């Protein structure tokens, strides 16, 4: 305490501490942060403007002028359907699995096992999607053929499994499963983070009532983590909707609009369709592909906004 005698020089003390005005470091920091935030907005706007400008011709030209002789809506609808179907199926498979993995890691596994398993799950996210595609077509696809035949036989009355089961495994079913594996790490990471933050006093409160571990999880951990599971799911959906390589490789697409997951004829997805057709397109066909990209952009935007709305309502309601 060398400098100031606080009892006598209070005024000088305050003036010295603030340095008279805001410190340079503070200003540099706040300007940099603001600039970063503005850049994000500009990028987002730039992408949207590009999509709208380049995609516009697809909306203004008549069906006869467009490649394939279909209106743009007729062209994009089956693709959008396939995109949403693949992503939804992936989420339905991945979310329960991811929640179970997150619960196991945070509340059941011994610490060392939990740590290792956590790393391994995160590692799933580091595998490039082209590898997933190759694995899907060479390993999972053939392996899934008997499963799909069984589904057709036993559960054929459900439209999803109407069949006839594909003999190659290049189906929506397999593509969805691969997407599920791909989004598992992100959903599970988000859930894990929040599950592990469940206040200890709540967990102990449940256990002091005589709750078993599962009952404690149901009473405290799951309600506490609910909104994070929803936002994790939406993040995963966002990835699954836009995933290109794996789907492009695996799916044998015929453009059919069908809920049948296991047959030879499947709807394609927007992203896979762009990847497949772009190299051979020119002129107006390119504009059409970009316009389908705009539709994909809109779908992911709506998904994210829905997630925010759900979370906001939860936070308000409880």
């Amino acid at each position, binding site marked *: 305490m060398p400098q100031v005698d606080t009892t006598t020089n209070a005024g000088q003390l305050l003036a010295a501490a603030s340095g008279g005005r805001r410190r340079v470091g503070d200003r540099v920091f706040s300007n940099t942060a603001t600039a970063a935030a503005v850049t994000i907005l500009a990028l987002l706007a730039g992408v949207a403007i590009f999509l709208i400008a380049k995609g516009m011709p697809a909306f203004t030209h008549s069906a006869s002028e467009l490649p394939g002789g279909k209106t743009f809506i007729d062209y994009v609808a089956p693709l959008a359907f396939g995109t949403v179907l693949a992503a939804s199926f992936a989420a339905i498979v991945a979310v329960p699995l991811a929640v179970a993995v997150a619960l196991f890691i945070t509340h059941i596994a011994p610490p060392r096992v939990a740590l290792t398993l956590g790393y391994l799950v995160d590692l799933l996210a580091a595998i490039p999607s082209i590898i997933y595609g190759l694995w899907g077509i060479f390993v999972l696809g053939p392996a899934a053929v008997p499963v799909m035949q069984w589904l057709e036989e036993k559960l054929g009355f459900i439209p999803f499994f109407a069949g006839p089961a594909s003999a190659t495994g290049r189906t929506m079913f397999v593509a969805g499963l691969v997407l599920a594996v791909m989004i598992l790490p992100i959903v599970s990471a988000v859930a894990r983070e929040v599950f592990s933050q469940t*206040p200890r006093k*709540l967990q102990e409160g449940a*256990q*002091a*009532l*005589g*709750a*078993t571990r599962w009952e404690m999880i149901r009473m405290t951990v799951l*309600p506490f983590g609910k909104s994070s599971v929803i936002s994790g799911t939406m993040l995963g959906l966002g990835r699954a909707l836009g995933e290109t390589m794996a789907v492009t490789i695996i799916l044998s697409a015929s453009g059919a609009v069908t809920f049948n997951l296991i047959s030879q004829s499947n709807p394609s997805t927007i992203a896979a369709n762009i990847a497949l057709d772009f190299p051979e397109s020119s002129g107006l066909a390119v504009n059409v592909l970009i316009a389908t990209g705009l539709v994909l952009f809109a779908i992911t935007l709506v998904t994210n906004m829905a997630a925010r709305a759900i979370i906001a309502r939860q936070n308000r309601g*409880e």
Partner: protein
Amino acid sequence: MLGAADKKRSAVESGSEKVAETATATAPGDLAQAPMAAKAKTIEARNVNLYYGAFHAVENVTLTIAPNKVTALIGSSGCGKTTFLRSLNRMHELTPGATVEGEITLDGEDMYASGVDPVRVRRLVGMVFQAPNPFPTMSIYDNVASGLNLNATRIKKAQKDEVVERSLRGANLWDEVKDRLDKPGLSLSGGQQQRLCIARATAVEPEVLLMDEPCSALDPVATLAIEDLIGELKSRYTIAIVTHNMQQAARASDLTAFFNLEESGKPGRLVEVGETETIFTNPTQKATEDYVTGRFG
């Protein structure tokens, strides 16, 4: 009772008998004074040593928590009284690395015997915590009822309503919340939340109630309300309460156990236990006298 599978529902069954009894009682004030004395159970700890990993937290405690009495555990911070309290319903072992040596019995039955399910022990020996911890996503009603549906127990709505009302009345909270049972538990004040937690703990009809500094987060008015409540609850339960508040121990307890540790890093020990009045006026140990008169700790 602890191990026998066919008695697994005994707490709930005796709970329903009690509902039948109280249904015939007229004045709600009678509930707290209802003749339940026969039900309260004794906890006996013999040569109990508690560890966190290699750290020896509590050494060689032998103590009886007497039925229908309030036993206060006092002592300076870190002397192991909360740790000891948590060993009485097997909450201690939930901390990773925590272990227990010695014997703790509930009415003669060893809580730590190999066939005993800790979940069952915690059902019989309830706990109220330092900070109120109502479940944030649940309403007032659901908080009180939260222990009733555990372990695959199903009870009828009408019966649940009765248990909730009886528990809230027992916790002196009913009149304040009866018109808003569907509101979140967190909408209550701190003192009300703590009484809600007491109602939640008593709704499952435990034999013993453990309280870990239940008033430390509350203002003096709320504290007094909880102390009054403790005085009423002892007619039905065996109660052990950890407190840092000397006046509270003197006001609310019948028996007082003084814990101390010789120096930091050494395990905590039970120095002396006796009638609260004796401990506060005429203790046998110098350390006790120093502590209760505020000369240290």
